[in-house]
Every structure is written in C-alpha cells, then in structure tokens.
C-alpha cells in the first residue's frame, strides 16, 4: 500500500483487516473478486460495525446509481431515420426497426 493511503487509514483508526475492506469493498460489491476473497471480507464485515456501516453506505450509493437506468427507448424519429438508412443498404429487416417501437 502506498504511503498516502496508509496515512489515511491510520487517521481513520482502522485495522489492517478493515483496510482490506476499504481497498476491495467495491470489487466485492461488484462480484469481481475470488470466492475466497469474498468470504474473507464477508466474515470481517459481519464482525466489524465500522465496516458494516461502510458497506451499507457504499451499497446505497451503488443502488442509487443503478436506479438511473430508466426505460428510455429510441425515439420514433430515430427509428424512422435508421430504417431508411438500413433500407438504403439493402437490409431486408429495415421495417422491423419501425414496428418494434
């Protein structure tokens, strides 16, 4: 770990195991770490109130970002333009672009 990161950890009064959570919580929440690593983090979080609070904070943040995915569809004007473009290239399914609206 780099010196600046170590300083920040010490300032927060966290143990080295909490530091693992700090460094890898996003990997863990994204399901991008090994099962062994996930198990280790899970066990620590379950026993550490500070890390539980931090996990809740980060989980709520990621959930808020995910909610931004609205059911926003391609506008009809775009579908019409694309259908014409595909038709111009000889695409046989150009009408499907319009009918899917």
């Amino acid at each position, binding site marked *: *770990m*780099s010196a*600046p*990161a170590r300083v*920040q*950890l010490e300032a*927060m009064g966290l143990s080295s195991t909490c*530091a*693992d959570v*700090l*460094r*890898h*919580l*996003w*990997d863990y929440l*994204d399901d*991008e*770490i*090994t099962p*062994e*690593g996930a198990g*280790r983090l899970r066990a620590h979080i379950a026993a550490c109130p500070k890390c539980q*609070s*931090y996990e*809740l*904070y*980060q989980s*709520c*943040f*990621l*959930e*808020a*970002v*995910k*909610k*931004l*995915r*609205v*059911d*926003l*569809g*391609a*506008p009809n*004007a*775009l*579908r019409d*333009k*694309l259908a014409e*473009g*595909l038709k111009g*290239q*000889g*695409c*046989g*399914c150009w009408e*499907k*672009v319009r009918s*899917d609206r």
Partner: protein
Amino acid sequence: MTTASFATHDEPGLESDASGVALGAGRNQISAGDPERDIAFERDALPWLDDVYRFALSLTRDEADADDVVQETYLRAYRSWHTFIPGTDCRRWLFTICRNVFLRSRERQRPTVDLEDGEQDAVAAGSVYAAARERGYDDIYARLDLAPALRDAIDELSEPFRSAVILVDVEDMTYESAAEVMGVPIGTVRSRLFRGRRLLQEKLLTVAEDLGFTPAGAR
C-alpha cells in the same frame, strides 16, 4: 493492483480494427444482401436498439447527437456484420461500436488518462465516507432522492470515467464486458470506475451541503 486472494480478472480487452469493430472477422461471412444476414441482424442486433440509444445518450448528453451516433452504429454494424461472432454478446459488440463512433466524433476528447491504481481511489472514497460521517451525512443515499443530482454529476464526469461508471454501474456490465467495450485492460476499467465513483461521492457530498441537508444526528 489486487493481491492474490482478492484477484480480479485482468486481461486485455478486445482489439479493434480500423472501423472500430471488435475483431473476429471471417466467422460469419455472408455476402451483402443475403437474407441470412438480415435474419441474424434482426434477431441479434435490433433488439438492443433501445439500450444502444440509452448508452449513446449518456455519452453524448444530447439527443440529436445520440441519434447520429446510434444511426452510424447500426449502419456500421450492418455493414460489418461478417465480423460479429455468432453466439457472442451482441449488445457488448454494439456498445463497442457505439463508443468508437462517439469517440471518433470527438477526437479531441479521446481518453488520455490511464490510471492503474484503483486502490488509491477506493481508499480515498473511504476518506470521503469519513468526512460524510463526521458531518452526519453518511446516510444521504438512503434518506435522500439524489437521482437528479447524481445524473448531473455523472454528466459532469469527464471521459473516460463517465463511460466506466455508465457501463458498470448503470448498464450493469462486468469489468470484463466494460473492458471490451472501452478497448482497454480490465485493470484500467477498474481504476477508471473507482475514480469515477469517488468523484461522484465527493460531488454528492457537496450537493448535500449546498442543499442544506439536515444531518442524521440533528433530526
């Protein structure tokens, strides 16, 4: 980077050819105007039109520009259909083309930042949390509807951080899929994503303060 016990997948993303389409040529060779190509294109590519539009809109932040990017993406996809590998993730393939079309339309905004140490940002995010907790703002995401502010903050993120956040957090892609779309190694996606998240959290903390959000302890 990560330790062995926390290993992330760290492989290079797909390379791209000159037209910006993921390599894989020769696996789907069909002549132009072939009905088989049209059937496959309709089945595999057209269902993702809404998703590609949403992605294009998040990149361009302008409806007219998004229309142009989507139009070019699909026309290019149709022309280059022979390079699509049947059975692979067509949505990811289309997103890759879409992002390349977008970047070509804004050559000056091509990503120049190549951060490798995502852990610095992960740790820095812990400091943002500590600051939020000190001010009683550590439950803002649970208590406040920050969607409008969050949307604005993502719009203000610079590339390539915005793409990483949109692909992984909004479009729910894995690091590996986002890496293919962005044409960079997985470790680079991770570092860009972590930087983007940390910047968003800093921004939202400022927004909460500016809005006069009442800290949890003061209720």
